Structure formats: C-alpha cells, structure tokens
C-alpha cells in the first residue's frame, strides 16, 4: 500500500508542476508591489522586469546571427544608428540626423557624449569598424552587400557609401549596432582575435559585450537566466526599468502559467491556444499585431533526388492544407500564405492563391512516378516560431496522405540553427521577417543561389537556384521606379510560385502579454523588437 502513497505524491507534484515551477524569484516580487508606500526610495532601487521568452540569446555578439532573438537582444544591449518608429518612420538613435550627400553617399551625424559600457567614448571609428565587421559576418554580409564602405569624416560624422543608388540604406541602418572597436580589438587569453565571429564554439565576442545600449549584461547562464542592469551613463532617460531578468521558458503552457501566477511580468510569444485566457484574466494585458514573418518549409533538392522533380515539389504544396494549420494549430492567429510577402508589400501578387488540393497532389505524385511515395527526413525548431513543432507535426501527417513518410526531429533553436546551416535533413523549416521591411529581402536570403562570397542565399537550405530569379532580385536593388520595381517583385513571386520553390504556410501574428501596469503597447512593434529601454512600469 506504500506505493499508492507514492502515487498520491506523484499526482501532487504533477499538479504543482502545472501551476508553475519558478519559485526562486519570489523575493523580488515585493519590490514592485509596495511601491506605493516607498515612493521615493523605489525610484532609486529601480523597477525590475521579469521577462520570460521562449529562448534566450544564443550569443552576446550581435553580429553572429541574423535572427529575431539576436536582434531583440541587440536592441537591449546595443543601440542602432536609427530604429523603426511605430508609424514606419525612422527614429534617430545614435545618429542624430542624416543627409544624402550624393546618389551613393549618406552622411550620418552622430550623437555626442555617448559612451560604451566599457567606458570608451563612442566615435565615428566605431561605426566604421562595426560596418566592416558586418561585411564579413556570414549572416549579415548579404544584407550589406550593396554597401561599399563607411568613411570617418570627423569624430562625430560618418559617410556610408553604396555601390549604386540604394533606396533601402536607412532601413539597413536599423541593423547597424555600433560595437566598441577598442574593446573588441586585440587578442583574448587563448590568443584568438577578440573580433572573430564564431558561430559555434567559444569566442571573446560570444561571451563579452560592450555596447552603447541601455542595458548591460550583468549575469548570464545560457539557457537558464540572463540578468540585464541599466547602464548608469545611458543617454536616453525614457523608461524606468532598472533590471531585466530574462528567463527562457520553452514550454508554452509553463510560460503562460508563469505569467498567470505572477512569477514573471512579461511573456513573448503568447501561444495562440492561450490568447483568450490571457485576454480575459484581470490584471493582464495582451497586445497582438499582424506580422510579416512568413513560415515556410524548404525542400533540399541537392540532398534528396526526388525534390529535383517539379511535380513532387508541387505535390507537396498541393498536399499542404495551410488554411487548416492556420485555423486549427494557429487558432486563426495567422494569415494563410501562398507567397513570401504579405498584402502590404510591393511584391504582393493577388493572382497567387493557396493551393491545397489532395486529389491533385496524389495525381502529381503518380505523374512524377512516385505513386508509392518515398521516405525523407525533416527538422524543425520547437521554440523559435509560434507553434513550430505542432505545425511540423501537422505537415508530416499531411505528407503521409500522399505516401511521403517523413521522419521529423524537432529541437530547441540553440541546436537548430547549427543543424539548419549544416543542412542535415531533406526538409527544413524556416520563418523569415524581411530585415529591410522590403520584399526583396525574402528572396535574397531564402531563395537566391547560395553564395558564400556575397552572402546571398545564406538561409536557402533548399538550395533552390534559379539564375533568372537571382538576376531579377539584384535588379530590384537599384530600380528606383516603384511601379517597375513592384512589377519585378511580383514577377519573382510568380516564378517562385510556379517553380514550387518552397512550401509557404502562413504569416504569423505577433503577440506579447504582460501585467497591465506597464506601457506594453507602446514598446512593441511589427518587427518584434520590443524597446524595453522605453518600458515604464507604474
């Protein structure tokens, strides 16, 4: 009978687990609640934000990986030259103002009196150094390919020069987070260059930071917690959060439970299945926005012979019930996609519609000579995109219906991107938000022929390569006539659609949830880079 007691306790433990398991931070909770009685000292002690995300930054080097998570980190610890405001305009940050000097040169006037976390002053040298480093970063060099160089004019002025007239220069300036050139120069203890960009493995920049941002990294235990402290000499006095404690909580239900129980103050993303619950809970605020992040599957035809066959690729797209996924897995919290850019984008081609048709898919498989199907492998992350794992599982059973047996492995994003870059599976999942807020960016990274020199096709794990698409995409970079450019972009989408270059799923919506005593709605944006520096907790 003793063992039945063991069961009772097991049940109790399970129940506790459901309610949420982080008890460590209870001691900090009072700091916020009793602010009424200790108004004056509270300002000194500062506000603490307990933030739970699905994952924490993979590195402290803002130029090592081009991903949403790393950009969110960069906006906390570094500062860009300019950043997006909510209305789509540019907000001056480290660049106070800018002027076009000639067709290919933009002059930035930098903010004076800014210092890095290391104490070094911020100068034009740092901007030039950072842009040069971006141009050699495997992930960023594609974005900065149109750039020739940056030149120091004086300590607070810098010229950025492009190869040809480039309309998206300011969009790109939102990606220039100046790094402390003095801090990152020299050799570390093991004799390696401090500026080295190392994607996997240890490096100085991966574990040390010196930015100009509002927060410095006070403590970091990767995958467990990261503590950000406000940098006392930060120039922008907006926002009153002194300490941010970032805890990665991969499991959706646990992350929601942590917010509901008050263990954390802010969660992102919010799983679609829990939106209603959070909205109806008193004391919580839910902010949602329709997004432009496309979720796709890439079919690797270099790795897997049958994907070379157009009919097989088409069959897979015809077998994918993406509106079913949007309705059931995403709970309507996404928009069904048949192309890369959503409606507001110049590339949107209304003629391209979702293609789900199971009978047609089976027919195509037969015509392709694979009536009995085949087996292939697939990988997907499980904490990168909203419901990524469930989407991948649903996709696997959809392909099962046309006889394709897919072996799926899902993994946390910290492991996923290494595997993705190594192209270990025949089908790989990727979501993309255009860094430039411009539609050509999707193709440049996801579908242009992979080229390690220029960085184009850096995330093209399907290794789709169509010289025609490449030529058209390059042409859009310098095409200044918007109508012509739009027509060109739409033609690219049409070519990709007909070529079944990738499997489009949907554009995922964005969501954030927090306690309702802060201005969450004002700091979040469609880029999904919350400006925590501007967060005000009442």
């Amino acid at each position, binding site marked *: 009978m003793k063992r039945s007691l063991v069961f009772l306790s097991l049940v109790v433990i399970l129940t506790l687990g459901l309610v949420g398991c982080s008890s460590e931070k209870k001691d900090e909770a009072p700091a916020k609640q009793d602010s009424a009685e200790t108004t004056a000292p509270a300002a000194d002690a500062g506000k603490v934000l307990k933030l739970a995300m699905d994952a924490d930054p993979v590195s402290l080097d803002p130029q090592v990986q081009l991903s949403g998570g790393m950009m969110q980190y960069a906006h906390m610890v570094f500062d860009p030259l300019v950043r997006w405001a909510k209305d789509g305009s540019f907000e001056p940050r480290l660049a106070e103002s800018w002027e076009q000097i000639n067709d290919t040169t933009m002059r930035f006037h930098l903010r004076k009196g800014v210092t890095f976390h290391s104490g070094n002053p911020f100068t034009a040298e740092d901007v030039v150094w950072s842009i040069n480093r971006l141009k050699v970063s495997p992930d960023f060099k594609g974005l900065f390919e149109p750039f020739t160089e940056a030149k120091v004019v004086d300590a607070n002025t810098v010229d950025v020069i492009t190869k040809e007239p480039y309309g998206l220069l300011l969009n790109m300036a939102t990606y220039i987070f100046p790094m402390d050139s003095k801090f990152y120069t020299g050799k570390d203890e093991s004799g390696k260059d401090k500026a080295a960009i190392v994607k996997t493995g240890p490096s100085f920049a991966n574990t040390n930071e010196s930015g100009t941002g509002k927060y410095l990294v006070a403590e970091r235990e990767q995958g467990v917690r990261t503590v950000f402290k406000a940098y006392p000499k930060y120039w922008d006095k907006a926002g009153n959060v002194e300490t941010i404690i970032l805890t990665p909580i991969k499991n959706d239900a646990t992350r929601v439970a942590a917010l509901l129980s008050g263990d954390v103050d802010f969660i992102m993303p919010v*799983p679609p299945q829990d939106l209603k619950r959070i909205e109806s809970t008193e004391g919580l605020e839910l902010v949602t926005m329709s997004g432009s992040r496309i979720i796709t599957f890439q079919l690797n035809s270099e790795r897997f012979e049958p994907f070379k066959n157009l009919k097989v690729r088409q069959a897979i797209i015809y077998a994918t019930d993406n509106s079913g996924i949007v309705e059931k897995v995403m709970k309507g919290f996404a928009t069904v996609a048949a192309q890369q850019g959503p409606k507001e984008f110049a590339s949107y081609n209304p003629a391209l519609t979702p293609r789900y048709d199971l009978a047609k898919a089976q027919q195509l498989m037969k015509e392709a000579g694979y009536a009995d199907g085949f087996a292939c492998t697939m990988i997907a992350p499980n904490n990168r995109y909203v419901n990524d794992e469930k989407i991948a599982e649903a996709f696997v059973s959809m392909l099962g219906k046309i006889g394709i047996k897919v072996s*799926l492995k899902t993994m946390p994003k910290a492991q996923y991107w290494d595997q993705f870059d190594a192209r270990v599976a025949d089908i790989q999942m990727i979501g993309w938000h255009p860094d430039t807020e411009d539609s050509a960016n999707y193709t440049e990274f996801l579908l242009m022929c992979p080229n390690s020199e220029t960085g184009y096709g850096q995330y093209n794990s399907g290794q789709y390569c169509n010289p025609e698409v490449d030529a058209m995409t390059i042409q859009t970079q310098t095409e200044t006539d918007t109508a012509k450019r739009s027509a060109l972009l739409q033609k690219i989408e049409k070519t990709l659609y007909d070529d079944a270059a990738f499997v489009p799923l949907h554009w995922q919506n964005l969501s954030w949830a927090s306690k309702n005593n802060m201005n969450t709605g004002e700091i979040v944006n469609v880029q999904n880079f919350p400006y925590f520096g501007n967060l005000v907790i009442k």
Partner: protein
Amino acid sequence: MKTRSRLQRFKESYFLHDFLRDPVALTSFCILVVFLVLGFAAAFIAPFNPYDAMNINIMDAEIPPAWLPGGNPDFLFGTDGQGRDLFSTMLYGLRVSLIIGFGAVALQAFLGIFVGLIAGFMGKSVESILMRIADVQLSFSTYMVAIFISAIFQAAFGLAKYEEIAVPLLILIIGFAEWPQYARTVRASVLAEKKKEYVEAAKVIGLSKTRIMWRHVLPNTLSPVFVISTIQVANAIMSEAALSFVGLGMPVTQPSLGSLINVGFEYIFSGSWWITMFPGIVLVVLILVINLLGDWLRDFLNPKLYKG
C-alpha cells in the same frame, strides 16, 4: 487418481485461495487483464489507425469527448491537437507502453539474475568486481543513460532509422539502467541459499557447480524476483513515460502514453484538458494496479506475514 493434474493442484493451492479472497488483488488483476487485452488487440479494437496519416485530418483537431458539447460520436474521447482520435491513439500508446515495460523488465531480469547468481555463487573477487560494476551502473540515472544512448544512436543511424528502432532502443536503455536491482536481490538470496543443506547434499552427490547453480539454487531465489518484477514493470513504464515526456522517448508519430501526456500538456490552459487527462488516468491506473498486485504478491510470499 494417483497424481492430480497441474490444473487441479493449482485450483486447490493456497495461492489461488488467497488471491480470490483478496478483493484488491482480484480487481487489480482484472483491470490489468483488460488493459493487456485492449493494448495488444489495439489493431482490432481501435476505430482508427493513428499511425496511418490517411486517418488524420487537421480539421478534426481538438474535438472534445463525445459526451460534451461540440463532441463528435466518431471520436469517443475527443481528438488531440493533430486531429488524431484520442481513444485509438491511447490504445496504441498503451501497447507501446506495455511492450516497453515488459520488454525492459525481461532484459533487466535476464542481466540481473545472471550477474547476481554468478556473483553470489562464485564469491570473492568475481563478486566484488560484478557488484562494483552494479554500483557504478546505479550511480547513473536512467535519464543520463537515455540521453547518452539516444544521442549516440541518433547520430549513428540518422533520423529515419531512429524512429524505427525507438521501441527496442528504449527497452535497451531502461533495461540497462535498472538491472542492478535484480543483481542485488538475487545475490542476497543466493548467499542465504548456498549455505543450506540441500546444496551441500548436491555437492556430495558430485553434481557440477553449474548444475547446482542453475537447477538447485536459482529456483529457490525466484520468489523475491517475482515481487520486484511487478514493481519494475511499473517503474519501467513510468521511466518510459518520463523520457517521452521530456522528448527523449517515443517519436510523436508513434506516441506512447507518456508522449501523449506531453503533447496534451500544452493544451491544458486552453481548455482541451482531455488530451492530457485521459492518457494520464490510464497511466496512473495501470501503474497502480501493477503495484497493488506486487504488494499482494509480496505479502503472500513473505512467511512472516503468513496469516494462515
């Protein structure tokens, strides 16, 4: 009328008498039999085959159990987040859990009895070496062994192969992780038995060591083995559920009870409680009845608790 048949002897045995008079044991046994039948006849009983993608439609996802509003009579216990019929998936999952549970225990028992018997019978340095190996093995947790082995196998065989070998692999992992339990128990009984007169007698007759070991000592050490076997089956099923819950066990395409509970866990706040609750109840009841049977068996085999 000279000798009674085995069946007759069994019918008149105290074992059956005690069993029939113990309502807890009897009920537990009946429930276990029902589970075994349901699990192993899943292919005939289940209305759908959850391994066949043709039966899965994403539009059927998260349908509540048939008796609730919005329920569909086709799906008695509702459907999971992928649109699989929960009742069918549970039956198949039960089968996977039972196969892994019994398979792992068979492996544990084989290894453990072998090692324990040799260690107890040989004594001296053989005993110390084997028992130290068992200590080392015990100091690794099942999860550590599982993470280690599954990582190696996934790297060695690739993804596609891993799905095929998941069941034998889990049997291997859980079997290897827990064999010292058997080895310890058997060794202790062997030490007690080998001093007894019948062993001396066998030696005097001139029987070989191996024969004495296997034919004389072993049968007398088996009663504690039966008792721990019941507990170990329950433990193995729980270990598998725990491993699947953290994502190291069965792949989602062939869910066990543990992976079903894991899948459903994410939906618990959104109100789709049935995805995690029904497999959870089945798992708890299954382990409970096995444990209760084990308790009864222990009481029955323990002469000190013999109530006459």
